[in-house]
Each structure stands twice: as C-alpha cells, then as structure tokens.
C-alpha cells in the first residue's frame, strides 16, 4: 500500500468516518437480540480498515447500521455516525440515498443481490452515474466503459450490453467493484466480498481492489471472517466478538502481538501454511455467544482461558497497549495478575 501516508496519529478532524457508541437491536420472536453493543471506531483517509469476527459477531450489522440498510426487525437504538464531518445518523432516507452508492461505495458477498437481472450491466452503471453525478448519459457511457476496462473486463464497450447472468461469479464481482468505485467515493465498504468465490478468483478480486484503492486513494472498510485476507490487505484491524470491539490496532499489532484472549484464540485456530513445522491447532473451546442473553460483562468470558471473577459482571474498557492498539480485557489492567498477563501476551 504505497498510497496515502498514514495519518492515524493526525488530528481527528481528518477522519472520514467516525462511529460513536453505536447500538443496534433486532426484535425477533425469541426476544431482543443486541447485535451491536457500544461500538466506536474511525476510518482515516487512504487506509483500509479490516473488521474481523465470526458469524453473529455484529460486523455486518455494524455496517448496515451505519448505512441504514437494516432489515425491518433491526433498529439503531443509540450512537452517532459522522461521515466526512457531518452527523448522518439523523439524516432522512432521501439524504442517505445521496450518500449510499455515491460517496460510499458498497460491495457485498453476493453480487446478484445488488445487480438487477432485467437490465444490462451498462444500463445499471450509466443509470447509477446519471442519478448520482447528474452528468449526461453520453458522458456516463464513456466513464462506464473506462471503469469496466479498469476492473479488468475485456472488450468493455461490448460487455456493457451484457446482462448480469451472462457474467461468471468473479466477473460479476468485478462489475460490483466498478459500480462501487465509479462515483469516486470517499469510502469503500466491502462486506465479505470474496467469501463466495474460489481461491484463485478471490486472488483476482483482492488484487484488483488493492490496485484500484491505491490508484483512487479511497479509504476502505473490509469486513471478513478470513484472517488471511485481513493479513494481506488491511492497515488497521478491529476484532469483534458478541457485538463488541474486543481489540483494535495496526495489522502487525493484531497478528504478532495479540492481547485479547479471543484474538489469540482466533489466530491459534488457523493453520499457517508457511510455518516451518506443523503446529497443533489451539481452538477456542465452546460455542459462539448467545446474543439473546449475553453475559453481563465480557461476552467472551464463558470461553476464555483467563477468565477472572471480575469478567462475568463487568465489561472492561478498551485499554491502550500501544498508541493505536487497544484491547478490551481486564488482563490489561495494571493491577491484574502479572502471570496471567504474561500468559495472555504470548505471541506467535
């Protein structure tokens, strides 16, 4: 990532997105699911922020809450979202429309949910541009052809006439990248963009996203469960568990000096194919958290090796480990037992 210099430490004025104390609930027949609990983070220009976690950790719901794309059962019950300096959490649907797909480009796991099967790809790209940028159809067509060429689609002016089903899965995801980036967004949000793809196709798409992001200097949020994808593409990482951010830091902090027992467990669960000797996997015991009745304190406490008396009733604050590296764990407390802290600080 040779693009923008890192401005992580620069004043908060420069941030593109700031989320404060976001809370989202789902009302289901079984009860209220608190999917996002008090989540705060920022995205800075030019950086790629990864959000990792397992299914149900709240990573996708966080994004849907920010963009207000929640299903009918979901509701944002607290917090604020500042995008490019403005508080968009109070915006109405019309004003959100002007942000979504325009200032914020979006890529989802399944391109077919966002592409309309009855219109040609060109029609959708042009329509999208005309709607958001107010340029003529002719100018839009020129830009659409350029964009398709840029995402690596051969013979773009011909392919403009094709319909989504005439593209393969990988090509469709390229079209999605084109649609997401054609409006020159300030922020690109990709939610599991390569999860449905095969490894060789995933490599194509990741390579494409990395190249375009550098060329266009867009900030990006990449939501994924794949630690390999994070290691390869992200500058900073948020680790989520049970609707909360449990650890955040630069990619090296997370992979080489993980502090939170969950992050450590996650890393211990995946084999490193480049490791010189075959290491035994150290899985996290137990099952994913039940969000209907989460523990009062830290959501990870039932599965945590280092659980202490304080953990089950009191949620720990996010405590700095280094500048920009924070872990929400009682082990970080200066008065926590040293032995456990040392054990928890074991790195790969």
């Amino acid at each position, binding site marked *: 990532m040779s693009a923008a210099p890192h401005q992580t430490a620069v004043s908060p004025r420069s941030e593109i997105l700031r989320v404060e104390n976001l809370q989202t609930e789902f009302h289901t027949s079984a009860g209220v699911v608190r999917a996002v609990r008090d989540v705060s983070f920022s995205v800075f220009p030019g950086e790629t922020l990864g959000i990792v976690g*397992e299914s149900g950790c709240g990573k996708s719901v966080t994004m849907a809450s920010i963009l207000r794309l929640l299903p009918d059962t979901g509701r944002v019950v607290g917090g604020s979202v500042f995008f490019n300096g403005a508080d968009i959490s109070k915006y109405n649907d019309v004003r959100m429309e002007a942000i979504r797909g325009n200032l914020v480009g979006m890529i989802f796991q399944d391109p077919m949910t966002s592409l309309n099967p009855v219109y040609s790809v060109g029609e959708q790209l042009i329509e999208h541009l005309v709607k958001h940028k107010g340029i003529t159809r002719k100018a839009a067509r020129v830009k659409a052809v350029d964009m398709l060429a840029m995402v690596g689609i051969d013979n773009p002016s011909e392919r403009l006439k094709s319909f989504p089903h005439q593209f393969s899965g990988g090509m469709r995801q390229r079209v999605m990248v084109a649609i997401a980036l054609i409006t020159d967004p300030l922020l690109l949000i990709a939610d599991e963009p390569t999860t449905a793809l*095969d*490894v060789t196709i995933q490599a*194509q798409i990741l390579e494409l996203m990395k190249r375009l992001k550098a060329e266009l200097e867009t900030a990006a949020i990449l939501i994924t469960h794949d630690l*390999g994808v994070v*290691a390869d593409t992200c500058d900073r990482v948020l680790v989520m568990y049970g609707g909360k951010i449990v650890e955040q830091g630069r990619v090296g902090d997370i992979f080489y000096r993980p502090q939170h027992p969950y992050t450590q467990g996650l890393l211990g669960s995946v*084999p490193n194919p480049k490791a010189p000797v075959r290491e035994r*996997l150290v899985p996290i015991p137990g*099952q994913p958290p039940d969000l209907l009745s989460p523990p009062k304190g830290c959501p990870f406490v039932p599965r945590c090796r280092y659980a202490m008396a304080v953990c089950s009733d009191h949620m720990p604050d996010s405590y700095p480990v280094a500048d920009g590296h924070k872990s929400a764990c009682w082990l970080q407390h200066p008065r926590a037992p040293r032995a456990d802290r040392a054990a928890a600080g074991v790195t790969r």
Partner: protein
Amino acid sequence: MNDSTATTAAAPLLEVRDLVKHFVVKRSFVGRPLTTLRAVDGVSFTVNRGETLGIVGESGCGKTTVGRTVIRLYEPNSGSIVYDGTDLAPLTFEQMRPFRRRLQMIFQDPYASLNPRMTVTDIITEGVRDELRPADRKDLAKRMLETVGLNDDHANRYPHEFSGGQRQRIGIARALAMEPDMIICDEPISALDVSIQAQVVNMLEELQQKLGLTLVFIAHDLSMVKHISSRIAVMYLGRIVETGSSYELFARPYHPYTKALLSAMPIPDPDVARANRRIILKGDVPSPTRVPSGCRFRTRCPYAMKVCSEQEPEFREVAPGRFSACHLEDGAPV
C-alpha cells in the same frame, strides 16, 4: 502411524482406478442426453491404511462427486473402487450394505445433514436401528456422544437446538456408530466458524489416532488440508492434476495449477502475505459441461503451449512419489 507403514506397502485400503461419473443435465424429448456434465472424468488414487488423503480443488472440480461416488451414493459410469480387495463399483445397493459398516461419510452442511424431525439418539443410531434393541441403542448413542465431547443431556434433543460445531460432531458420531475403518469427510468444516473449525479438525485427528481411522479429507481450504493430510491430491475440472505428500507438494508444487492455487492461498501473517508474489490466473474455471480439448487447464495456464490443446498430458511420476499431469518437462516451467 509407524506400524501402519508396514501394511501400507502391502495393499492400500482403497484403490480407485479410472473412476468416471457423468451427469446428464439436459435430455432431448425422447430422453437422449443433450448436455453431459463430466463431474469426475477418469480419476485414480489410492489411500493407505491409517493415513489421511486430502483432496483439494475449487468448486466444480468434482471433489465432492468423487467422495459420493466412492461411497456409492452415485452410480459410477466406469472405473473401479477397490476397497480392501473388493471392487465396490459393480455392487448393488443390497450387496453394498455390509461395506457401509466399514466406509462412512461426514457431510458438509451441519444444518442440512441432520433430519430436523429426529432426536439425536435416533440420528446417531440410524445405521444400526434394525440390529439393536432400544436400550442398546440408547447406550450406543450415549457412548458416541461422549466420544465427540457431548453428553447424555443432548441425547433427546433435536438438531436445531445445537450450534453448527455441535451438529457437525453429531454427524461424526453418526459415522462412528458404524465403527468404520475409513471416513470420507466431505468439506466437513467449510460451513463452520473459524474457531469451531479448529475444534472439529482436532477432534478428527484425535479420533484417527485413537481408533486407527483412515480419512479422506475433501476441502477447498488449502491450509486446513495441508494441516490434516499426509498426502494431497489436487483436482481440476474432473481430473487429478497432481499428487504428493503434503509437505512436498507445498514445498515444491509441479503442476502450474497447483502453483497458482498455493500462491493464491491467503496466509494469516501480514509480512509473509505481503511478500508473497501471487500467480494470478486469468478467467474462470470452464464449465464441466464444456471441457477444453487436450489439457483441461490450458485455457488458464500461464505456460500453455501448442501441444496442450492437442494432447492430454499423461499423469506421470515426475519425482519419486510425485505425480503430475503436465506437458512441461518436469512440470516446472523454465
């Protein structure tokens, strides 16, 4: 593992030769096949006692069909499946039944592979239902549940009450209840969360050691396959393109497809991942209904030559214990 190496030389537990399974996806009005999907198109491999053979490949490569055909859920078009000296391919369903005690399967989707209307006890003991009295079946279910880390409290519950990882363990218990020698694991972890995947993989490894099981581990996740397998077969479009011991295949891949696949594999280590030079393959896997002439991989191969479109490369030994199907001299490009 050491004592099994001796028997290994004698006879493999499973020997598959030239296995072919085609599906007719479209028929004419009178029932003549119009489009044929060549899911498995001449696959040969062996599995030795006590080892784990990994089969990797991308979607549509036929790896799942291989597993299902070997266990005779599908009727093979041709080829032989020699299991411990008996060819399973020509057997009828009734003749096959005794072998099902010895050859079992674990399925991919923990949500779809358990009947939602049956209790855990009934699911686990389904295969021995006719042979055991109800009390014995309860006992067996209890023992099997304990083997996979669950307990008696779970015996009378229904599948939807369990998490994905627990369900997958119930699926393992169902296979183990038959006391098999060999289990074919068809993408057993790909539907599970990362932290749960490791639980299931560790459990399979422990069970293998304890019970002396032979495993076939089918998956698309290369790093997990490398982790669990002693040998690996790489499939592409209905064929095996390369085999080798897990360590050697990763250290020195011969076939261009294996090379690309390995280089595309995400690595959970930022420094290594970013230093990694990827071979980016162009385009997509062709449809198995329209298999390219000659070498199947030539449409995406960075080293494709004229001969590749004319002649199918032979699956040959390129180094001791290493087989690859490529026209390049030793499989390694200049």
